[in-house]
């Protein structure tokens, strides 16, 4: 459960954010430069909002009023970068294991390396380096790596924009399945309205820092 209400002053406009997501996928859609990535980075802790408050599962991770700003590494938020940001000097397996918590917080079997690699169908790639796999495979590795940290929220920054149409539709289906299985909220950023319609339980359109709700939370029919 995420509740975020904050402002961030950007060079050309003021970004105003008021989102809340309890389950399912919240899609932020809008043109380039609308502040989508900034929202994700503020939630993850890679950027600091000018003012406001961000809460996850009732725990305040940022509050300008109380001077709270929990470091990124303690926020338990998974982040999938636009260009995947896989570590080029590590194998797929090492990449996936990088963020594995030392102490297991849940006894969930899926959180083993094998479990996650299997879930995302990348087990056969474990000894390859990122430069030796395809874009779609990189995307799966990036997802696996983020999930391995046992996050309470997953942020995805244009995860499918660099892929060809077939890989893209395939991964869209898998993201939906994954979210249903994992039962943590996803926030996904895209500039493609069609993709937003396809994936979003909630859709928020952004333009120059102002948000407009396109679809409210409802039960997904499929």
């Amino acid at each position, binding site marked *: 459960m995420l509740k975020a209400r904050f402002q961030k002053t950007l060079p050309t406009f003021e970004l105003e954010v008021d989102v809340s997501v309890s389950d399912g996928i919240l899609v932020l859609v809008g043109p380039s430069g609308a502040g989508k990535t900034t929202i994700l980075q503020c939630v*993850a*802790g*890679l950027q600091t909002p000018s003012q406001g408050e961000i809460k996850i599962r009732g725990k305040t991770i940022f509050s300008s009023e109380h001077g709270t700003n929990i470091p*990124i*590494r*303690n926020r338990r*938020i*998974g*982040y999938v*970068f636009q*260009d995947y*940001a896989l*570590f*080029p*000097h590590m194998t797929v397996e090492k990449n996936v294991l*990088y*963020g594995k*918590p030392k102490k297991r917080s849940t006894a969930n079997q899926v959180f083993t390396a094998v479990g996650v690699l299997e879930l995302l169908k990348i087990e056969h790639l474990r000894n390859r380096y990122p*430069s*030796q*796999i*395809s*874009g*779609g495979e990189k995307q799966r590795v990036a997802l696996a*790596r*983020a999930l391995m*940290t046992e996050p309470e929220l997953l942020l995805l920054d244009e995860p499918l924009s660099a*892929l*060809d149409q077939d*890989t893209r539709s395939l991964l869209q289906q898998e993201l939906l399945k994954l979210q249903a299985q994992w039962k943590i909220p996803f926030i996904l950023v895209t500039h493609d309205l069609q993709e937003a319609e396809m994936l979003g339980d909630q859709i928020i359109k952004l333009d120059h820092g102002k948000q407009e709700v396109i679809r409210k939370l409802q039960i997904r029919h499929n």
Partner: protein
Amino acid sequence: MEFSFIPIILSLKVAFASVIIVTCLSIPIAGLMVKHEFLGKDVIESIITLPLVLPPSVIGFMLLVFFGKNGPMGKLLEQWFQIRIVFTLAGAVIAAAVVSLPLMYQSVKVAMESVDRNLEMAARTLGAGDLRVFFTITLPLAWNGIVAGLVLAFARSLGEFGATLMIAGNIPGKTQTMPLAIYFANDAGDTGQASILVIIMTVFSFMVIYGLNRWGKGSRRDSRREYRGREG
């Protein structure tokens, strides 16, 4: 006069010691400089780079003033630890380290700056603290630049002449490194000894530059070996 290997051995000793000092200094300094903004950063950076443009005699003179018998550091070391820097091999090491630090530092800094910031951010979102990010992401990805800096610093240390002469002097068997031996052998008319050392230094320096160029090309090819096909 028969050929002596001692200058070669002394030069290697000085170069190794200097490279160790320079590595231990430049990696943490470059790490801090790349990651943080602070007051006086440009001043510190300029001071580190200064030996690159100053004549060696100026550096030698400064070191002499600083580490000399009555210099601030020289006095301290002499009184507390009974260590003398002037006219010892330690002096030669310090001279070599001061002139090769800028080479290593620049090389390491450029390498660290070119590490994709997204990768460091990704490591942070995966729960890594500053030190873990530095040792598992920044340092390994800057490795090529670090090795290049290391080799350049080694070669520069090996060839250091002016500042070494001023602070360490020219004591055969004690502080007379290869460049000094060449200068003084030639001065004394012993061209045989001078030419052998000249050949050794030239061949070595050539190999360093050649090796670095080859290796640079090789690693660029590696990074271009991106995955192609499969999706198409």
